[in-house]
């Protein structure tokens, strides 16, 4: 019996070593990070799990292309410990992947960022902008022609005037309210509760609805990446998930990234937890979680197939896979000898002048601009807790976040599955502060 225990222990150790070797995990000091200071992350994560603010999480910190910190804490599901290879709903962290798909087509000359979207999706022709009229006016709104068509760049930078429904609760105003009511009447959803239709059907309806603002004039987080995902289908002739699988996941060896999980990987999918941030933590059940205009359906991720492929929300992945994707960006577009994007495209995506004077104030505050797929820290004049100027990052609504710091060549990835996301800004900021403060060279 004792021999068996030794053998199992040995095999587990060997497997862990093999995974570690494949994942290029090194001692923090080898890449200029302090083990002692990274220990603060252990304490932070453990305390959040102990206080039952979150069910569990995986945190990864890498520097100079090597992983120096990679730990799982708490539970992935009831009775199931969190693992490094647990699979998460990364939701809006799908967006940088979708942007990358567009940039691949851009580099191949299949499209230009300045192309009007209507060139590929006719429903975007002759769009109108809704202007709310004062109370008592004969009609509640006026529809004004766009000064120029929505361009692909507008979709990448969220300056198209297309909205998300759930932000109606966060930034209410008459114009937004009217547009969101129109979205609902036309059957447009944010895609966090996957509708039973193809993404193309949704996008074609969306294109015929009024915009919130003139294209290029306002930064507003919206369904833009969903439109981009369909645009990839139109331009490439492939389904969006097949394109991403073949052109991004496969070359980057992101072996656990999908839009619909294969059956054998379902047991690795993390559960979603509902937290009030005061110790009441409940595992979400099979029913959608609805709060105002926000609809989340964690069980969507258990579907093995479907037609709805959201470029803004549908991706499932692991911290390690997402690290590989992020490292490709940090390396200027290539990873392990495979070049996905040119250095110039990465520079273009991380430039801070795509949205003019508009700041990306949804996830962050002022001082952040939106590039072509993520927010970029532009200055230190505003309330920012960590990171270098030029750091770029984004997050997912079930509490996932990545941050890439090109100056320090550092990547930080955090993945949990907890709702509501509004509680998590504080935790995310603390993780990024501790990741930054572990730099010791």
């Amino acid at each position, binding site marked *: 019996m004792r021999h068996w225990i030794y053998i199992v222990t040995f095999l587990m150790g060997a497997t862990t070593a093999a995974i570690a070797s494949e994942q290029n995990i090194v001692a923090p000091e080898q890449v200029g990070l302090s083990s002692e200071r990274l220990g603060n992350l252990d304490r932070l994560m453990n305390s959040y799990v102990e206080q039952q603010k979150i069910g569990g999480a995986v945190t990864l910190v890498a520097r100079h292309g090597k992983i120096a910190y990679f730990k799982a804490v708490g539970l992935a599901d009831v009775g199931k410990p969190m693992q490094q290879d647990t699979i998460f709903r990364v939701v809006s962290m799908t967006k940088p992947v979708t942007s990358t798909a567009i940039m691949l087509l851009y580099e191949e000359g299949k499209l230009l960022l300045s192309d009007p979207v209507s060139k590929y999706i006719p429903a975007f022709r002759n769009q109108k902008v809704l202007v709310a009229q004062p109370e008592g006016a004969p009609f509640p709104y006026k529809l004004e022609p766009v*000064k120029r068509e929505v361009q692909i760049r507008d979709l990448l930078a969220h300056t198209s005037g297309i909205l998300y429904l759930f932000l109606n609760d966060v930034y209410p105003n008459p114009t937004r309210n009217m547009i969101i009511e129109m979205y609902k009447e036309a059957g447009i959803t944010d895609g966090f509760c996957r509708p039973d239709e193809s993404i193309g059907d949704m996008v074609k309806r969306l294109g015929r609805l009024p915009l919130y603002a003139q294209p290029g004039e306002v930064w507003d987080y919206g369904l833009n990446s969903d439109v981009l995902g369909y645009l990839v289908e139109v331009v490439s002739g492939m389904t969006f998930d097949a394109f991403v699988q073949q052109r991004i996941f496969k070359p980057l060896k992101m072996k656990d990234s999908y839009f619909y999980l294969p059956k054998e990987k379902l047991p690795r999918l993390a559960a979603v937890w509902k937290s009030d941030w005061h110790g009441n933590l409940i595992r979400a059940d099979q029913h959608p979680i609805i709060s105002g205009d926000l609809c989340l359906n964690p069980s969507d991720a258990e579907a093995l197939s479907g037609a709805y492929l959201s470029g803004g929300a549908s991706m499932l992945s692991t911290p390690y896979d997402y690290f590989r994707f992020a490292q490709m960006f940090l390396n200027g577009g290539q990873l392990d000898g495979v070049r996905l994007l040119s250095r110039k495209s990465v520079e273009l995506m991380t430039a801070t002048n795509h949205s003019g004077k508009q700041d990306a104030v949804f996830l962050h505050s002022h001082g952040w601009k939106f590039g072509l797929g993520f927010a970029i820290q532009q200055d230190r004049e505003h309330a920012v807790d960590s990171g270098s100027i030029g750091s770029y990052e984004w997050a997912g609504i079930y509490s996932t976040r990545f941050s890439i710091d090109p100056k320090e060549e550092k990547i930080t990835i955090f993945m949990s599955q907890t709702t509501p996301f509004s509680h998590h800004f504080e935790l995310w900021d603390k993780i990024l502060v501790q990741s930054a403060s572990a730099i010791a060279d």
Partner: protein
Amino acid sequence: MRHIIPPAFLTFTMLLLLQTSAWATGPRVTTALFTPDAHAIHAHDFPPYLSNEVVDGGPISAITTEAFRRSNLQASIQVEPLRGIVRYYLTQEHAFAIIEHHMQFSEAEKKQLIFIPLMTITEHYFYYKPHHPDGFNWPNDIHELKGRTLGYHASDAPPLWQKAGIRIQYGRTIDMMKQLKNGDVDFIKASKPSIQWLSAHYMPDDQANFVTMGDHHDDEVIQIVFNRNHPQGASAAAAFQKALDAMHNDGTYQRLLQQHTRSTTEVRHDLAHVAP
């Protein structure tokens, strides 16, 4: 020999060059490229009768386009996703014409409008078979439906329903079909071609599950509405009516209808239904 280039020629050449260079980037994003010269006829998306998703836009589009062609009028149908947007164009931007059904107008509004019936469709009541394996027929007394929820695609529900205690849930027909399947509504009202087209496209596994509640039905008229507030509204209406009558008389109307629909009982040109 000295060639002197006149300043006016130089200016002209420079302007020409500058214009060429501007055209290299400008037209790609200008809206002018996509602005139709024709009068826009705004219509609510209503598959399979009128929709960008249907071949040739569906029977209403085919019939209307042919009537305009015969009237020597430049007009194009603009399919809108919402009925409210169609109303906006009619009442606020004095659109040349709209195509509508189930739209309510005040008496004052009606005076400014010219209604020409295009087509009569029959709307039935449907239930979801798996929820009622033994059937669910329209009762002799409507009050037997008290407490039930009807899914309906238009906001002009007859007061009779509410008086009978029927709750009404409004929404797109496809959403109502999904709600019917989920048990959120008990029955829905729509035309057979709508149900057949939508289930074939969006709910193929459920095509046989949407079943009519017996023969109970209502007729609905789809009409083109010309706007007297538009300078050409009244004259265009007269020309259109004449062309439509001619199409009816020479068999073009029936031919176009049959090209797009299989049933002549569910969809027909019934001149007895002259609205309003």
